C-alpha cells in the first residue's frame, strides 16, 4: 500500500537523534502527528501546542505548498505526498 511520507528538518535531529523519513500513518495531519509520536515520543509537542495548533515558527509543506490551516490541520494530502516539517527562519 502506498503511503505519504513525512520528512523532518535536520534541526529536529538535535532532539530526536533517530529521526528519519517516516510513513505518514493517518488520513489527516493531526492523525499522522499522533502516529509519529509513537515512533518518536515527545515529537508532537515540538510541532504542536497543547491545543493542537501548529507552533508559530514551524512550517509544514505538502508537496511543496505551505499548508493553510495551522489551527485544525485540515489541509489534504495524497498517498504519494511528501510532507515536509520545516522550521521558519526566525530568531536571532
Amino acid at each position, binding site marked *: 500500500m502506498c503511503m505519504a511520507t513525512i520528512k523532518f528538518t535536520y534541526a529536529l535531529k538535535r*532532539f530526536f537523534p533517530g529521526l528519519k523519513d517516516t510513513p505518514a500513518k493517518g488520513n489527516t495531519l493531526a492523525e499522522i502527528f499522533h502516529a509519529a509520536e509513537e515512533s518518536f515520543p*515527545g515529537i508532537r509537542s*515540538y510541532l504542536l*501546542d*497543547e*491545543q493542537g495548533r501548529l507552533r508559530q515558527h*514551524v512550517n509544514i509543506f505538502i508537496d511543496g505548498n505551505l499548508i493553510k490551516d495551522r489551527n485544525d490541520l485540515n489541509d489534504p494530502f495524497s498517498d504519494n505526498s511528501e510532507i515536509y516539517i520545516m522550521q521558519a527562519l*526566525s*530568531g536571532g
Partner: protein
Amino acid sequence: MNKQTILLGTRKGLIAYHRSNSRWAVENLSFEGQPVSIAYSDPRNGTWWACLDHGHWGVKLHRSTDRGENWEEVPAPAYPEGEEVKDGVPAATRYIWAMSHGGKHYLSKLWLGTDPGGLFISEDGGDSFQLVESLWQHPSRKTGWMGGGRDQPGIHSIVVDPRNEDHLHIGISCAGVFETMDGGRSWEVRNKGLRADFLPDPDSDIGHDPHILVAAPTDPDTLWQQNHCGIFRSVNGGMSWQEVSQPEGPARFGFAITVADDNPDQAWVAPADSDMVRTAIKGALCICRTDDGGKNWKDLRNGLPQENCFDIVYRHALASSGETVAFGTTTGNLFFSPDRGECWETLNNYLPMIYSVQFTD
C-alpha cells in the same frame, strides 16, 4: 554561609559558574544556543532544572541530577484542552517565568509560573505538572489580568512560606500579589497600598505590576517587591504595602530585588532609568542597598561601569547569599560582590543576555 555555585539562565544556554580557591570558573554549559528562561537548582536535592524557550519548538522542561552532565526531558506544563486566556484566545504555555520547590514537608512538590497566567503544580517530583484550577478560575483573571513585560499575563514570582508550606504568595504581571493559605485551593488578592500609575485608577484592586516579589528568609512576613511603580515593602505578610522608593535617587524603577538571608531589613535593587528609557541611569551601572527596611538606600558602584553603559538587570537576575551578591545583565555582563555590594568584580563581559541568576551549593 556563602554558596559556591552561580547558575545562570541565558538567551543562549544554561551556564554554571563554580568558585574554588576564591576563583570563579565555568563548570557547565548546557543547551548551548537555546534560550533558558529560568535555570533553577532545587536546594532540597540538588536537582538542576532548565526551563527552555525554544523559538521554534515551544517551551520545554529538563532536569539533571548530576550538575548538568546529563539531562532528562520531562513533559512541560500544558493547559487542558479548551482553556482560554480570554474568550476566543486559546491558552498554551508560552513561557516558564518562575519555579519553586514546595518545601521540606512536601518533598515531591514543585511549583511553576507561566505566561499566559497559569500556575502549575507537580506532586511527583516534576514527572508531571497540573494547572492550579482555583487560580485559573479566579473571577478577576479574564477581565482584570493583562500583559506586562510580556504580551499576556504571567506568573513570575512564587514565594513559599517555610513556616507553613501551604502558605504561598505569588506575583503576577499584570494582576498583582495573590495569597493562598490552603496550598492553592483558594486565593486572596494582596495589593493594598500598591500604586498602578498606568491604570485609570492607580488604587485598583487588580492590575498591578509587581516585577518581582520576594520574602525575607529570616522573617517571611516581610515581603519586598520591585514594582513597575516603585519599590514596596510589607511587614505583615502582604496585608498592606508601603512604598520605600527613593523620592529623588536611583532606587525607584527597576526589575530585580533580593533580600539578605540573615536580615529582613537588608535588600538590594538594580535601578534602571524609568519605564520610558530602560537603560542604566546616565550610562552608569549601580546597585542600591538598604540596611534599614528601605528608609535609606546606598549606591554601590565600586567596580561597576560608570560611563557608556546600557545594561539593565532582569527580574530574576539579581541574587544574594550570605556576604555575596551577584547579578547578570541584558548585555551579558556578570558581576559578583564578596562583601554585600561594597565592591564588585567582573566575572564575564561576553555572556548572552542573562535571564536568571541563582546561588546554589
